[in-house]
């Protein structure tokens, strides 16, 4: 008898469990928000670096245009390009321009081209931890490449002391730190090193992750910053925004005009302006080591990737509307979030490109 009671109560429990499960399931279905009749929902995915400004833009734009909801997933540039190519999002975002091969693949799968729209600018800065040294160090391109190639090993290497005569650099090994996760910051850092050092270009190259000749890897800006902070005599690189927001010390870099520039929003915008003169029509341009007396050499655009053909007319209008707003009104939110603004010349060229969306 006891056994039967037990199974009976067990059955009751199972039945209740199933019933509750069913209720939850159907309940969830019926309460899920029915989209408003005129609401346009747009899905986007991509780079993490511009995520703070993008989410600000999308939320402000929604306040002003209540019928447009843009949902952005910061899954990384690589993921953004993949999702755009497979057609699972309406547009993508990336810190590195798409390669010719990626564009060809996207064209094959989507049946149309993909346009690059620069949105904001970022930079990467060298940060270091040398006990007893508070001065802002000056780095030449050769020294920076030498350090990351493992050739400049000591802080008192003549190449470093020559540019920093007033600083008493110690006879200590340089502990090199880099990003371990794939990132747009690594892309522009290695893109810059490839431009200033032939050896770097042939041995290591440029990518979101590379085969580093030397160094420790930290995960994310905070990982690199953590290792640099914790390790005496170390040198790493972080995003300019991260360095500004965490008031980290960082060094000056010699630009292509020979001036030593300390990165800030103005010098990054100057790099974009310097590159705007011979900007290719598809905006796929690297602005590292850009010309211009005030240009900071490790700067980069970040891009929205928008297909030229958008089937749904409501979505098309919404995306075009957003792009126009972003270039006119949206840019004024940049400074507060420590992003560098697009130069005027680039904005007017982008406005022309909008007409290519059909």
């Amino acid at each position, binding site marked *: 008898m006891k*056994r*039967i009671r037990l*199974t009976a109560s067990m059955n009751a429990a199972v039945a209740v469990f199933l019933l509750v499960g069913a209720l939850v399931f159907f309940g969830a279905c019926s309460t899920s928000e029915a989209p408003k009749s005129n609401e346009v929902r747009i899905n986007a995915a991509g780079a993490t670096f511009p995520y703070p400004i993008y989410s600000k833009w999308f939320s402000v734009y929604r306040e002003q245009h209540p019928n447009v909801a843009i949902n952005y997933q910061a899954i*990384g540039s690589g993921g953004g390009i993949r999702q755009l190519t497979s057609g699972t999002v309406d547009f993508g975002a990336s810190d590195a321009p798409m390669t010719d091969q990626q564009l060809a693949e996207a064209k094959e799968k989507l049946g149309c081209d993909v346009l690059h729209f620069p949105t904001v600018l970022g930079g990467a800065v060298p940060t270091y931890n040398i006990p007893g040294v508070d001065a802002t160090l000056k780095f030449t391109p050769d020294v920076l490449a030498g350090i990351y190639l493992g050739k400049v090993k000591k802080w008192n290497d003549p190449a470093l002391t020559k540019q920093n005569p007033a600083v008493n650099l110690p006879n200590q090994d340089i502990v090199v730190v880099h990003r371990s*996760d794939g990132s747009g910051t690594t892309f522009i850092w290695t893109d810059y090193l490839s431009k200033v050092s032939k050896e770097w270009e042939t041995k290591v190259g440029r990518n979101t992750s590379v*085969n*580093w000749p030397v*160094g420790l*890897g930290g995960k994310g800006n905070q990982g690199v910053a953590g290792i640099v902070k914790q390790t005496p005599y170390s040198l790493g690189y972080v995003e300019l925004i991260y360095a500004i927001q965490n008031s980290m010390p960082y060094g000056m870099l010699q630009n292509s005009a020979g001036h030593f520039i300390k990165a800030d929003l103005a010098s990054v915008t100057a790099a974009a302006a310097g590159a705007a003169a011979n900007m290719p029509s598809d905006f796929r341009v690297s602005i590292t080591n850009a010309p211009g007396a005030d240009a900071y050499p490790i700067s980069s655009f970040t891009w929205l990737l928008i297909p030229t053909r958008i089937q749904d007319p409501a979505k098309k209008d919404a995306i075009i509307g957003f792009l126009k707003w972003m270039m006119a009104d949206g840019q004024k939110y940049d400074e507060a979030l420590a992003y560098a603004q697009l130069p005027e010349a680039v904005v007017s060229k982008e406005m022309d490109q909008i007409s290519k969306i059909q």
Partner: protein
Amino acid sequence: MATIPFPEEKTTGPSFRKPQGPVKSFVRRLQTGDEIAHLITLAFAASIFLITLLLLYELWRHSALPRHRFGWAFFVTSTWDPVFENFGALPFVFGTLVTSAVSLMLALPLGVGAAIFLAELAPPRISAALSFVVELLAAIPSVILGLLGIFILVPFLREDVEPFLKATLGFLPFFQGPMYGIGMLAASMILTIMIIPFIITISREVLLAVPVDQREAALAVGATRWEATWKVVVPYAKSGIFGSVFLALARALGETMAVTMVIGNDPRISASLFAPGYTIAAVIANEFTEATGNLYLQSLIELGLVLFLVTIVINALARVLILVTTRQGTANP
């Protein structure tokens, strides 16, 4: 279980078998639920097996490109170069095995020792309190342990532990080279902290489950308390303790976040524990999101397959070890 007869069924058997309309027969079957319980639990058990198979199949399917390009060389190449698309798994397999092995070496004596104390020697009140603390330790998220690793463990290793090891054991290749604090040793120690709760908790339960007769018999023939514990109770619980070690090892092989924060993420093979290294789980977590290019992406997926295989091989080896040692145990009473 499905065949246990019910008393009612015997007395009123035939009338029960008669169909009495679909609803009633459903209710009847529900009430005598063994059949249903059997099917449901079978389905649950089968789903585990299916999920594993599906996982293996998907990993295999999505890693076709590097499998064809690199073949078996993938296992013995130590270059990982996303720019020139040349990929090999060796440094990651090495890092995964070394950090897991070192952490197990540290955690096994500590964990089993603590479990013996908690189960056999400590007063019940202290045992309960300490066990609660151990379970709390198991609940700490790995990212928190990673942060503690960067800010507390790593400086401690760099300033004190590594110079000491270098001074005393520096003649061994394991304790040479520059001391960053960050590296394989730091990763192994974080892993030790993460897996000890598994070993302690499970080993303690297993030791507590050893029948009192075993202890009493040992004491009755003149064994001291420690002899009874070490020579009778622990061997009796051996296979359960091994089980705890498996679980710990599985955790150590797959741990990602805490390891990647302190290991230095450098795919190079070095004998020194001071040197930075890399593990399979860490590189996948680091590079997957930004991996463009099919060969690169699929090589990362193939690394997942390699981790799967490494886990299977290690588990198989450990099972053989258990078989061998327990057979010895019964042969020599």
